[in-house]
C-alpha cells in the first residue's frame, strides 16, 4: 500500500499525518529550529518504524509528501531575510514607505514604524514609464538600471524587487530590467512585481514583490535542502508545498513566488476544517483555532475556504497574493490578564511558551488565560495532562488572581471568572468583526474548534454567537498537518485587464486565459498530472467604476483546462448578471443603472487527490458513559462538582451531558451547561445545545 504524508512545522512541534488507505496515523515530535528539515526527517523515520519499514522503503512508497512551513513567517517575525533592494519607476521611490497612509492605531502618537525591508538607500529609481493602456510613455533607461545595480552591489544586496508602474499591463520594462540585473549581479535573486502580483495599484504590488524578494532566498534554500534530504532518503516524487491560498504546489512553482507559502499553516487548518465539515454534512463553518498566543478565526462557506487577494496586512506588510482569510486576535492560553486604566484587560500581551503561564512552572508570574482555566477547575493539575508531556501546577496561580481581585475589589475566584468572561467577549467580538461587511450571521454557521485551547471555550463562544452546533475533531491538536493532506494541488493566478463589461475584448480575454492555462499545464505536468485531471475554474474580477475592491466570481466553473468555449458574445451580459448576484450577496444592494467593469481574469485550477475520509453519523446509542472522576469547576454559572471524562474511554455513540469536562490528548473539551456532546462514528465530538 502506498502512503501520503502531511507535515506541518510549528514553533514548538512538527506534526505529521500519515494517510494509509482510509486510515490516518498522527505523529508529533519537537521542531528543530536550527535546521528544521532534521525534525522532518526524524519524524519520517518514526513513521517508517511504526510501519515496520526502513526509511528508504517507506519514502519509496510515498506517493506524496505535502508540507506546510512557517519559514517565510519566521523570516518576517525575526526580520532576518535577505538584504533586499528595490528598483522602481522614477518619482515613485517612497510609495513603499508611505503605506498608502495606513497606520495600525489611529490614536497612539507613539506608534512605532514597521522596520523597513528596503530602507530608502536601497530603493532606487530609473527613468521609464508605461501608461495605463500599456503604451510606453518613456522608454526604459537601461544605463540607469545598470547604475542602480552598481549601487545595490556596493550595499551587498542579495535579492532585488523590480516594480514599475503598470507593469501588469505591459511587462517589457520589468523583464528587460531582470536581464540587465542578471548580467550585472549574477546570483542575486530577482522578483518582478508583475509576476508576483499582476495587478494594481502600485503600493500593493510593490509591497508584495518586496516581501517576496525578502523571504525568497530563505524559503528556496530551505525547500531545496529538504528536497535534497528527502531524495537522499529515498523519496522519488515531488515535494508538494502548502500555499496560503489553501492549495499545494511543487517546489519549482513556489520558487517563482515564495511569498505564497506565508501563513500556509493556518490555511492548512482551514482547508482541513472545510473537508471535515463537508464530510459531516456542514458546509458552512466558523473555524476557531485557539492556541497559546492567538485566536485565529476563519469562515468556510458552501464547503470551501475561498482565498482572497486584497488588502491583507501580514506582520505589518501588505501581501496581495491570494490567502485563505484568517483573522487573528491576540487571545490565547498565554494571554496575560491585567488591570489597565482601572479596566480588566486580557491580552494581546502574551507570556508565550517561555516563561508561559504561571501554571507551567517555568518562572511566569503574570496570570494568564490558562491560569484562569486552572483557577476555574477547567484544566487539570493532575499528572499526565496534555498527553503526559507535562503537568500544570497550581503554585502561585491563586496568589496572582488574589492580587488581581484585590485591585478589582473581588475574590481571586471571581477575578479568574471575570478574565474568562473578558476573553470570551473579545473572541465573540473578533468573530463578529471577521464576518463584518460580509452579510453573514454567525448563528447560521456550525463552529469547528481546534488548537490546544479552542475546545475549552468553543461551546460558550457558540452560545454567545447564537450558534447551535460545535464540532471538535479528535485530531484537533494536529489539525494543520491533516489539512495539508486534504489540500489539493492548485494554482490560482490572475492577469489584469480593465474594460467595461459591456465592451469586452474577447480576443484579449482568450489570450490571457490561454496564457494562464499554459502555465497551469506546465506546473501540473511537472508534478505528474496530465491536463485531463486538471479542473479549471475560469473567474473574473469585477467592480463598479470607482470601487476600490473587486469581487471575484466563477464565470465558467469546473471546466477542462483550455476549454474556452464559454467565451462568446454573451459573456459580457452573463458576467454582469453574475457580478450583480455576487454584489447583492456581499453588500445587499446593486446599482441597476451602472455597467460594472472587469478588472482582471483569473484561472483557479486544481487536481483532486485522495484525502482522508471522515466518517459521518452516529451508531446506536451505547448509553451514557460513566465519569472517571469529578472536580470542583466553574463552567460559567458558579462552582460545582463537575464530572470528568477521559477521551480515551469514550466510544462512538457515547453521550456526555453538560456540565462536564472531557480530557483529550493535548486538549480539554468543556461541555457547558445546556449543551451535550455525542461521539460520532469517527470518534469526533459533536456538541449541540439542549437548553
Amino acid at each position: 500500500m502506498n502512503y501520503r504524508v502531511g507535515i506541518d512545522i510549528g514553533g514548538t512541534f512538527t506534526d505529521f499525518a500519515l494517510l494509509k488507505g482510509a486510515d490516518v496515523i498522527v505523529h508529533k515530535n519537537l521542531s528543530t529550529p536550527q535546521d528544521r528539515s532534521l525534525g522532518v526527517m526524524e519524524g519520517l523515520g518514526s513513521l517508517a518504524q511504526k510501519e515496520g519499514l526502513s526509511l528508504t522503503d517507506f519514502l519509496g512508497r510515498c506517493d506524496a509528501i505535502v508540507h506546510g512551513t512557517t519559514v517565510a513567517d519566521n523570516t518576517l517575525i525575526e526580520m532576518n531575510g535577505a538584504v533586499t533592494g528595490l528598483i522602481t519607476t522614477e518619482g515613485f521611490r517612497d510609495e513603499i514607505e508611505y503605506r498608502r497612509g495606513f497606520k495600525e492605531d489611529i490614536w497612539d502618537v507613539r506608534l512605532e514604524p514597521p522596520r523597513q525591508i528596503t530602507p530608502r538607500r536601497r530603493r532606487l529609481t530609473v527613468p521609464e514609464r508605461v501608461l495605463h493602456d500599456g503604451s510606453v510613455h518613456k522608454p526604459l533607461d537601461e544605463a540607469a538600471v545598470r547604475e542602480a545595480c552598481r549601487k545595490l552591489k556596493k550595499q551587498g544586496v542579495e535579492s532585488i524587487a523590480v516594480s514599475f508602474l503598470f507593469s501588469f499591463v505591459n511587462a517589457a520594462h520589468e523583464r528587460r530590467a531582470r536581464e540587465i540585473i542578471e548580467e550585472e549581479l549574477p546570483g542575486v535573486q530577482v522578483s518582478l512585481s508583475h509576476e508576483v502580483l499582476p495587478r494594481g495599484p502600485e503600493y500593493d504590488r510593490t509591497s508584495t514583490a518586496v516581501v517576496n524578494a525578502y523571504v525568497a532566498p530563505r524559503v528556496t534554500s530551505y525547500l531545496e535542502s529538504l528536497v535534497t534530504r528527502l531524495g537522499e532518503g529515498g523519496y522519488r516524487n515531488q515535494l508538494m508545498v502548502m500555499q496560503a491560498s489553501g492549495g499545494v504546489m511543487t517546489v519549482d512553482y513556489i520558487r517563482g513566488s515564495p511569498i505564497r507559502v506565508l501563513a500556509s499553516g493556518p490555511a492548512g487548518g482551514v482547508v482541513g476544517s472545510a473537508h471535515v465539515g463537508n464530510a459531516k454534512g456542514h458546509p458552512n463553518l466558523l473555524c476557531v483555532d485557539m492556541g497559546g498566543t492567538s485566536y485565529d478565526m476563519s469562515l468556510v462557506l458552501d464547503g470551501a475556504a475561498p482565498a482572497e487577494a486584497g488588502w491583507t496586512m501580514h506582520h505589518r506588510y501588505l501581501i496581495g497574493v491570494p490567502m485563505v482569510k484568517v483573522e487573528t486576535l491576540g487571545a490565547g492560553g498565554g494571554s496575560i490578564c491585567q488591570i489597565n486604566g482601572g479596566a480588566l484587560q486580557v491580552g494581546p500581551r502574551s507570556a508565550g511558551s517561555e516563561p508561559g503561564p504561571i501554571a507551567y512552572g517555568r518562572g511566569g508570574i503574570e496570570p494568564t488565560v490558562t491560569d484562569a482555566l486552572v483557577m476555574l477547575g477547567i484544566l487539570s493539575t493532575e499528572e499526565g495532562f496534555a498527553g503526559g508531556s507535562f503537568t500544570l501546577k497550581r503554585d502561585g496561580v491563586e496568589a496572582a488572581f488574589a492580587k488581581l481581585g484585590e485591585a478589582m475589589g473581588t475574590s481571586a475566584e471571581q477575578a479568574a471568572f471575570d478574565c474568562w468572561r473578558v476573553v470570551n467577549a473579545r473572541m465573540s467580538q473578533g468573530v463578529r468583526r471577521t464576518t463584518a461587511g460580509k452579510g453573514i450571521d454567525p448563528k447560521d454557521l456550525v463552529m469547528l474548534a481546534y488548537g490546544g485551547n479552542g475546545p475549552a471555550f468553543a461551546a460558550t463562544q457558540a452560545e454567545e454567537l447564537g450558534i447551535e452546533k460545535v464540532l471538535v475533531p479528535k485530531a484537533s491538536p494536529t489539525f494543520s498537518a491533516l489539512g495539508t493532506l486534504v489540500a489539493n494541488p492548485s494554482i490560482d493566478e490572475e492577469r489584469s485587464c480593465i474594460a467595461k463589461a459591456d465592451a469586452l475584448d474577447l480576443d484579449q480575454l482568450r489570450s490571457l486565459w490561454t496564457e494562464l492555462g499554459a502555465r497551469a499545464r506546465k506546473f501540473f505536468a511537472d508534478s505528474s498530472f496530465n491536463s485531463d485531471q486538471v479542473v479549471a475554474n475560469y473567474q473574473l474580477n469585477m467592480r463598479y467604476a470607482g470601487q476600490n475592491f473587486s469581487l471575484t466570481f466563477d464565470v465558467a466553473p469546473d471546466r477542462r483546462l483550455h476549454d474556452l468555449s464559454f467565451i462568446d458574445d454573451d459573456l459580457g451580459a452573463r458576467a454582469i448578471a453574475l457580478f450583480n448576484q455576487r454584489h447583492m450577496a456581499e453588500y445587499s444592494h446593486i446599482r441597476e443603472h451602472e455597467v460594472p467593469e472587469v478588472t482582471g481574469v483569473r484561472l483557479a485550477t486544481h487536481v483532486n487527490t485522495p484525502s482522508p475520509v471522515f466518517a459521518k453519523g452516529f451508531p446506536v446509542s451505547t448509553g451514557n458513559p460513566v465519569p472517571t472522576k469529578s472536580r470542583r469547576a466553574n463552567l460559567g454559572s458558579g462552582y460545582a462538582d463537575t464530572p470528568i471524562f477521559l477521551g480515551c474511554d469514550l466510544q462512538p455513540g457515547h453521550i456526555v451531558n453538560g456540565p462536564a469536562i472531557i480530557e483529550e490528548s493535548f486538549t480539554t473539551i468543556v461541555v457547558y451547561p445546556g449543551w451535550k456532546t455525542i461521539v460520532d462514528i469517527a470518534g469526533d465530538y459533536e456538541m449541540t445545545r439542549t437548553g
Partner: protein
Amino acid sequence: MSFELNRKLAARRDPLPTSINIDPVTADIVRGAFETVCFEAATHLGRAASSPIINQSNERNAAIVDANGRLAMGAIGTPHLTFVNQMMVRWGLMNVEVYDWGPRDVFLSNDPDHGGGHLPDYCVYSPVYDDKGELIVVLTLQAHQGDTGGKDPGGFTLEAADIFTEGVSFPCVKLVHRGEKRSDVIHMIERNNRFATFAGDLAAMIGAVQRGAKMLDGMIGKWGADVVKAAINQSIDHTERLVREEVARWPDGIYEATVLIDHDTVGTKDVKVHVACTVKADQLTVDLTGTDDRPNLVGVWNTFANSRSYVMTQLCAAVDPTIVKNEGMFNAVEIIIPEGCIAQPPPNKPAALGSFHPACEITEAVCLALSQVVPERSAPQLYKIGMPNAVIGFDENGQMWMDQGVDCRSMDVSAVQGIDGWGSCPVSLGNLILSEAEDAECRFPILNISREMTTDAGGAGQWRGAPGSLNVKQVLAPTMAMAWMVSADHPLRGMCGGDDAIPYSNRFEVGTSGEYKIERTAQAQLPADAVIAYQHGGGAGFGSPLLRDPEAVREDVLDEYVSLKAARKKYGVVLTGSLEDYDLAVDHAATEALRKEMGGKLPALEAVE
C-alpha cells in the same frame, strides 16, 4: 440656528435614566459589542461605496449616540469625524416630534449651523428603540461626499460669502420612514449633487446604517435596555475619570500658544488662533479666547462642532490612547470658544475650507500648549496643506470627476519625543488609505510624474519630522484646478526646540513660460499637458537638532532624508567618506567641536528627556 442653539447643543447631558447597576466587566463587554457594530457599519460602507474618498481614502466614521445625545461608546473611523456626529443628532433629538422619529427611520444631516461640520460631511443616522418604544440609542455614520451641489464642483468655493454658495444644507431630513425609503426625498438629494457616483454612496450609507441599527436592536433585546443604559453610563463615567486622573498628574498652570494662518482666501494676512490650556487639579480648560474674529475674513470659518472636535482630537493624542473615546472626554474638559470668532462663526458663514483652516491650527495650538505638559505625546494631529490640488473635469456624459484623491503622500508627520516622524500622515489620519497613481490614471486623464519625499523637507530635531513630498502631476486634457495656499509664511511648528517644517509651495504650468507660483489661491483652467507641482511641508522636529544621535544623522544622510550639508548646518554633524560609496562615518571629535560652536549661538538648548 444661533449662538444660543450652539450653547444648547454643547450643553452637558445627563446620564440615561436607569435604576440598575451593573459590574464593570459586563459594562465593558457591552461596550465592545457596540463598538463591533460600528466596525460592521463602517466596514460595510467602506466596501460598498463608489467614491474614492470613502472606499479608498476611508474617510468615514461610525458612532453610537445615546438617547440623551451623548457619544455613547467607542467609534470607528476618522477622529476628526468622531467628535461631531453627536451634535448633529442632538438637533434631531430636540425635534423628535417635528421630524416624526420612529423605529427603522433613517435621517440625513449635514448642516453646519445645526451641529454639523462642513457640508460634505454627511451624517446618516437611525434611532433604535426598545420593545416598549423607548428610544435607547442612535447609530450614526458619517462620510465625506464628493460634491454638495453648490457653486463649485466639490463644494469648495474660495470666495464663498455664505453657506448657500457651498451647497445644500440638511438640518435633519428623513430618508427612510419606518423601513420604507422615501424615493421623492432621495431623488431630490441625488439631483442636487454633481458627483457621478453619489447615488451609490448614499445608498451604501443607508444600507450600512440600517444593518447596524438592526444589530443594535438585537443587542438591546438580548441584554435589556436597562443593562445597555447602565453600560453606556459606566463607559462615559469611566472615560471621564481616566482623563481627569491623567490631567491631575499634570502640573497646574496656564499653557498658551498662538498659531497663525498665512492668510484667508482673499489675502487678509495672519489669521490668528490662540489657545490657553488651564490645568487646575483634575480640570482641564481649553479656551480659544483671543482667536481671530474679524468679520471680513473669508474662507477661514470653522463650525462650532468642528472646532470642539479638533480640540478633542489633539487631547486624545495627549492622553493614554486606550481610553475609550466617548462623551466622557467632553465631560472631563471644558472647552471655551468665543461666539463670533472663526472657531464659532455666526450663522450662514461658509464652512467648507474652515475644516482645513483654522480647524488644524486649533489642533496645532492645543498641541503646542500641551507640549509644555506632555512632551512625550506632543505630535500635532492635523493637515497643514491649504487644500490638495483639486483637479476637476467632466466626462463625456457631463458627469463630474475629481482627482482630489487626498493625494498627499508625505505631509505633516512630525516627530514625537523618541520617535521620528514616519509614514504618510499623522496617526489620526492612519485609517485613510490613499489613492494610488495606477487607480487614478485608469479613471482620469492625468499622469503622476513624481511623489517622492524631498531631501531636507522635514523639520530637524533630536527626533526629526518626516520629509514632505513633492507631488508633480500632469493633466492630459484641459482641466480645472483649484488650490488654496497656506503654511508657507507660517509652516508647521516644531516642538520643544525642534525645527519647524519647511514651507508649503505650489506651482502651476511648471516648465512653461507661463509657470507661476501660487501665492494665495488659484482657480485655473489648465491647458492639456500642463504640469502642477505641490511641495508638501513635511513634519516638524522635536527637541534640538544638536542633540540628535550623530549616528542617526549618518543614517538619514545615507537614506537621503537629510543632505550632507544639512547634517553639518542643522545637526552639527561632520561626516567623512562619501555618500556614493555608502561609507559615511561620523567624525566624533569634529562633530563635538562643531556642536559646541553652534550650541554657543543657540538661545536655549536644554535636553528634552
